[in-house]
């Protein structure tokens, strides 16, 4: 097991972080924000990551859509000529919540209708017609999305990208623990230097 746990009993001021299987925790953390920490037993942080990261992502999904054009139009996967959606590289960091975009892109490639009223569906390319839709009900192009959603398209894109990028920090935390955490093995020999609080590093109160 690749966990980082001090060999000896830690002092009261030290924090023991049991990472269990770091690779599995990192994978779970990518699937659902906070799931990796839940698996490790770090429940408060799991809830914090879940609420903050998923909340940011879902707020972006809400801002980037409406009833007319469909919800979640700022999260879509597209690797076509003149429409490389690089933002999705950040958005996929949030894991499963961004997967519908991949399914919708696959449906578009197979000339199938989108599910859930175009939720996270890629926009239609300009001057093209999707044969699976009637002419009066063609999905919107990127220009039409910008026109109808106005600044909320960019806002939604920014929120969902930040949500995905924040989860990369959480994945690293699930894999390696807090950045300031030092495993017991790597600690240098203790010195009798005074700390600002008036105690020594051995925990004795300075007289």
């Amino acid at each position, binding site marked *: 097991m690749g966990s980082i746990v001090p060999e000896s009993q830690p002092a009261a001021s030290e*924090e023991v*972080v049991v990472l269990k299987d770091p690779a599995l925790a990192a994978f779970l953390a990518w699937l659902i924000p906070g799931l990796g920490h839940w698996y490790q037993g*770090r429940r*408060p*942080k799991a809830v*914090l*990551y879940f609420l*903050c*990261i998923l*909340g*940011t992502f879902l*707020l972006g999904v809400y801002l980037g859509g409406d009833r007319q054009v469909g919800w979640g139009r700022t999260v879509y996967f597209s690797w076509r000529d003149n429409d490389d959606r690089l933002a999705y590289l950040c958005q996929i960091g949030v894991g499963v919540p961004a997967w519908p975009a991949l399914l919708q892109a696959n449906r578009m490639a197979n000339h199938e209708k989108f599910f859930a009223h175009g939720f996270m569906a890629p926009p239609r390319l300009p001057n093209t017609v999707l044969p699976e839709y009637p002419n009066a009900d063609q999905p919107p192009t990127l220009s039409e999305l910008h026109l109808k959603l106005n*600044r909320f398209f960019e*806002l939604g894109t920014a*929120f969902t990208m*930040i*949500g995905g990028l*924040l989860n990369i*920090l*959480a994945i*690293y*935390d699930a894999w390696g*623990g*807090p*950045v*300031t*955490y030092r495993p017991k093995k790597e600690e240098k020999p203790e010195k009798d230097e005074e700390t600002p609080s008036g105690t020594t590093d051995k925990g004795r109160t300075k007289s």
Partner: protein
Amino acid sequence: MIGLLLAIQAGIRWQDSDLWYALPLIVAISLVYAATRHERMRAILLHAGHTALWILGFMAAIFVLLILVSWFQ
């Protein structure tokens, strides 16, 4: 001082501003960043508060700078 007065004057219209969308971002970013550096919730919240204040201060400084630039334009 002029910049501060203009900022206060501009603040009257903040209820219509898109700046409010920055608040949930600042909260989420501060908390997640702090959580990657601490394990205990108290330390996380303290660090997050400090980070949020730093971001708000930075934004306020840029805000005043832009108002001054627009004033002397």
